[in-house]
């Protein structure tokens, strides 16, 4: 500590000489870049850090009031300074230091985590929106499905009706064909029967004629009739 004070006093003593050797604007630039701010600025910064509203009480007034209240509390033995005060001061220093130390890392960590969670949730929402949109698009392709189904149903009804009529017609044709075949077969049967009867009749007639021809009387009659016819012819030619 003592060495640091001595070093800083030596540095402060050496500063005017070094500054004199440099141009003024360079000194000003150095003061703003590397040296600590002037005491007035630091004091004003400290005053700004005091908790009060500028509209009601000035910062300086609040500092004076706080100091006065503390002095009054101690002098009137409202607050007794003892070993607990040491713990209080040490705790305030430590907690202040700790809070300053961890504020920025905690802030960065928390913001990074919040950003990660937000990213995950927004990603999930985007995916869900995309999935819903995809589903909507898929369903939109089926927007004419009702009218199309109704048309198909009407066509299917017509088809069924036509098929029924076709079936009826086919049945009629089948019945007609059956009737025709039966009738044809009947006609064929009748024809065969008639042919058989005619054949029998012919045979009978031929047989009877042959039998008659074999009889002498018939032969004589035929002969007589033939002679008569020849005579008649001769007679007619003679005329």
């Amino acid at each position, binding site marked *: 500590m003592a060495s640091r004070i001595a070093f800083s006093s030596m540095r402060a003593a050496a500063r005017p000489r070094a500054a004199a050797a440099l141009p003024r604007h360079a000194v000003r630039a150095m003061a703003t870049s590397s040296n600590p701010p002037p005491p007035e600025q630091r004091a004003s910064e400290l005053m700004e850090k005091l908790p009060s509203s500028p509209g009601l009480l000035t910062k300086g007034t609040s500092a004076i009031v706080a100091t006065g209240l503390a002095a009054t509390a101690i002098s009137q033995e409202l607050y007794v300074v*003892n*070993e*607990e*005060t*040491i*713990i*209080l001061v*040490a*705790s305030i*220093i*430590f907690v202040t230091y*700790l809070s300053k130390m961890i504020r920025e890392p*905690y*802030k960065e960590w*928390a*913001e990074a*985590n*919040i950003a990660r*969670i*937000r990213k995950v*949730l927004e990603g999930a929402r985007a995916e869900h929106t995309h999935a819903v949109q995809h589903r909507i698009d898929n369903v939109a392709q089926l927007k004419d499905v009702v009218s199309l189904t109704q048309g198909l149903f009407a066509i299917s009804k017509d088809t069924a009706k036509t098929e029924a009529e076709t079936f009826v017609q086919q049945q009629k044709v089948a019945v007609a064909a059956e009737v025709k075949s039966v009738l044809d077969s009947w006609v064929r049967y009748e024809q065969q029967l008639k042919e058989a009867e005619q054949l029998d009749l012919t045979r009978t007639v031929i047989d009877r004629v042959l039998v008659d021809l074999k009889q002498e009387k018939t032969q004589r009659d035929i002969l007589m009739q033939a002679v008569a016819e020849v005579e008649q012819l001769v007679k007619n030619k003679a005329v």
Partner: protein
Amino acid sequence: MSGFNILSPLSQFEVSSLIGVNAPILGYLNITLTNLALYSCFILLIALGLHLYGNNDSNLIPNKWSISLETSFASLSSMVREQIGAQSEIYLPFIYSLFFFILFGNLISNVPYSFAVTASGVVSLGLSVTIFIGVTILALSIHGLKFFSFFIPSGTPLALVPLLVLIELVSYLARAVSLGVRLFANIVAGHTLLKILSTYLYKLFSGSVLIAVITLIPFAIFLALIGLEIAVSLIQAFVFTLLVCSYLRDAVHLH
């Protein structure tokens, strides 16, 4: 210097009555609000308040406060799952409440002029004995008489069984005390040390200006001890809950 009134460093742990009613009813019923009860109420209010504030209006995206609570919940949840088992998350609310009760009790005790709830033997030992009894009942309800096999390590020769059962039984019963005493002793030791050191520091600061300036060196060490005490508060809460998880694992799984 002769005006100093030095109290015992242990006097900070005395349970004193703040408000009391000694009514001549029910055999002179004595209802008293002690500093222990008051600080227990503070713990409850702080725990409730912090969780209500950290609830973040049930928003899905956490804020900077609620993310710390969510992280602690996730840490405790992973601890429960690792220690007791993935199927035993039923114990998470108990472990979570226990952790935050002890943590807030320890942290509040670091505030100057406050009272250390967890430095009270009634609280620490009461908690540990209650947990020990509860865990034993839980183990008996899950495993029945098979629970007593816990006292015989596997592969023990028959001749050594009586001796090992005795040792295991004493070891098991010691859990009831060790769990509470660990917390109680750490907090009492830390606070007593701070009290003693602060008394010395106060005496030194009350001396001449030169001595006061030189005393800044031990004061820096004292600052480090304050930090250590805050760390101990967190570590002891964690150790307590970790051991409770371990005891629950033994009760649920037997070894």
